[in-house]
């Protein structure tokens, strides 16, 4: 799939691989990520889907109801990378021994808690060892399943249940970890970052590349959470757009070590456009916390410049 072969209607006509009846919240962004990544699989291709413990897991395979058309495995929170690396290795051996016939792709999903934090080692190991698999992080910027605790993916100043905004606190003190850059530093063939924009061509293209590139691939998808970010569900589209237009969540990819930007806003919007739509940043729009928005903007600017420099190389 590329600019010339992208056929939006054909993709929408593909069979659903994430079935309805799962119990994720109404309007859940994680679900949109999973559904559309799996739509990038070519019709008829087999896959094994992995999953770290989290909202997605407890809601998409609640016994006896699996939402997956494909084989699925979850074993714990911090080991989605290692677990799928075992499946992928078994596939190679059984294929070599002639015990199985079909070709398979391996895709695992983890939230930011299971990926940036507790599962980082397992992910790093799986990527370093070169397994032919895709790790997809649905990044909603906090431990949503346990009740909106901060993670290292939580944006600065976000009001979470472990970084609550209060009389002497303006929310999370630290900036976000740059996971995509960490994964790129593993020198794997493919790293991509995306979210839900327009007809999702960016997401489909990156998902297909990640799935069909031989070797390990990592995909980071910003997946808004209406409960944790505190917005009305239909606002998801406007929030994703604002995240990209403010350069808070740039769309880029790193192919064989080469960084490239996939979208550059004509006019970079101020970060308020992203912040003002979410209850978790409401406390910033007060006279005593105004300076935080300036700090947030400075951090976004610094990272954007850094990304532009990487992509210019």
């Amino acid at each position: 799939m590329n600019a010339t072969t992208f056929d939006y209607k054909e993709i929408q006509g593909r069979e659903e691989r994430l079935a309805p009846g799962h119990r994720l919240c109404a309007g859940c962004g994680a679900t949109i990520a999973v559904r559309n990544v799996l739509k990038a699989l070519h019709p008829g291709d087999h896959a094994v889907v992995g999953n770290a413990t989290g909202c997605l897991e407890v809601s998409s395979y609640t016994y006896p109801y699996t939402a997956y058309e494909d084989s699925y495995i979850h074993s714990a929170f911090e080991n989605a990378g290692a677990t799928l690396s075992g499946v992928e290795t078994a596939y190679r051996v059984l294929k070599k021994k002639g015990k199985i016939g079909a070709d398979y792709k391996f895709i695992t999903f983890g939230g930011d808690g299971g990926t940036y934090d507790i599962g980082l080692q397992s992910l790093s190991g799986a990527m370093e060892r070169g397994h032919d698999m895709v790790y997809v992080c649905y990044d909603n910027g906090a431990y949503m399943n346990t009740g909106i605790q901060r993670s290292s993916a939580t944006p600065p100043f976000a009001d979470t249940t472990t970084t609550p905004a209060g009389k002497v606190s303006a929310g999370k003190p630290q900036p976000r970890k740059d996971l995509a850059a960490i994964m790129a530093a593993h020198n794997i063939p493919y790293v991509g970052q995306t979210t839900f924009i327009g007809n999702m061509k960016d997401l489909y293209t990156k998902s297909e590349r990640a799935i069909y590139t031989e070797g390990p691939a990592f995909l980071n998808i910003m997946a808004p959470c209406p409960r944790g970010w505190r917005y009305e569900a239909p606002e998801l589209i406007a929030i994703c757009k604002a995240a990209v237009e403010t350069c808070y969540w740039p769309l880029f990819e790193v192919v064989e070590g080469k960084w490239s930007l996939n979208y550059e806003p004509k006019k970079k919007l101020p970060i308020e456009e992203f912040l003002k739509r979410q209850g978790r940043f409401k406390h910033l729009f007060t006279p005593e916390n105004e300076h935080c928005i300036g700090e947030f903007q400075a951090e976004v600017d610094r990272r954007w410049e850094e990304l532009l420099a990487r992509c210019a190389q």
Partner: protein
Amino acid sequence: MAVRTRMSGNEAVSHAIRQISPDVMPAFPITPSTEIPQYISTMIANGEIDTEFIPVESEHSAMSAAIGAGAAGARVFTATSSAGLALMWEVVYVAASSRLPLVMAVVNRGLTGPLNINAEHSDSMGARDSGWIQIYAENNQEAYDNMLQAYRIAEHAEVHLPVMICQDGFITSHAVENISLLEDEPVKKFVGEYEPEHFLLNEKEPMAVGPYAVSNYCMEAKKAQAEAMIRAKKVILDVAREFEELSGRTYGFYEAYRMEDAEYAVVAIGSVCGTTKDAVDRLREAGVKAGLVKVRVFRPFPGEELAEALRGCKAVAIMDRCESYSGEGGPLGAELTAAMYRAKLAAETVNIVYGLSGRDVRVEDMERVYDDLRKMAEEGLRFAQYPYLGLRE
């Protein structure tokens, strides 16, 4: 035709694995089990077996990858010790509850605190309630034989549970002793091909592993798992009988050594049993009716059978190479005493903690244990608390 040779416990287990040639082996280095992945990696490097080795970045990932590979339909092996097993803990339970027939060589070493690399059973004893079958070896021969029987037990349709094959760190794993090996072909025939009924890579039947289950399902699932552990008892004995036909060596839940008319018995696990047998022989020569019950299978716990083996004894010393910090003794002490109570045995018992962090146990030490047993029965000797063998005090 048996092959008589000399090798260490780690070599013996690795030799068994060469003969079984499992599909996938994820492992992480840790003393004293490290040699096993080293030997097997060398076999792979020389094209002797077609196992895929996954050089994982931690033991947690070793067990996680083992779960993934097992669910995918592969026959899986891993090896670990001590802190490595402790790091796996969470997923050790998941392997069992997912009913995956994985096999793991555990080379027993104490859990850290203080850091030490020597023999102790605190690692696998800590995992005793994880739902894994546990089989312990006295020496390299038994480690080899147990490994050959492991997959037959784990993969049996009535069982579908993972198995730990345990041996004592260094004492067994590194000491080179005589061993009788079976030839490759009969071993392969005995172990058989692994043909799982359900597996992730079955294109005709997508499956889902590892659900979230509400309370109304969990209790039933745990009961089903517990029943599989109980059913494993028969399978362990059946497989042992078949193995005896192949090898001429007899195995059961335990070995009774000179127990026919024994008045004083020691119950122990692992390499200390070799030392104890020497003590029994010496005492028997001196006319003391001493005997030994060596526990081979700790999970499922053969409580009834062990109690029956002790019926008629005047005093019994239950030996734990493991401190459980309960204030009451070790795990074998607790479980066997309970089984003896249920069997209404009248013997005096003492639970002795010994050999922690590789502390040496000599034949004389065990002779003293038997002497204490005699004093307990004849002179009313009582221990205020569970004693440590050979402690400076």
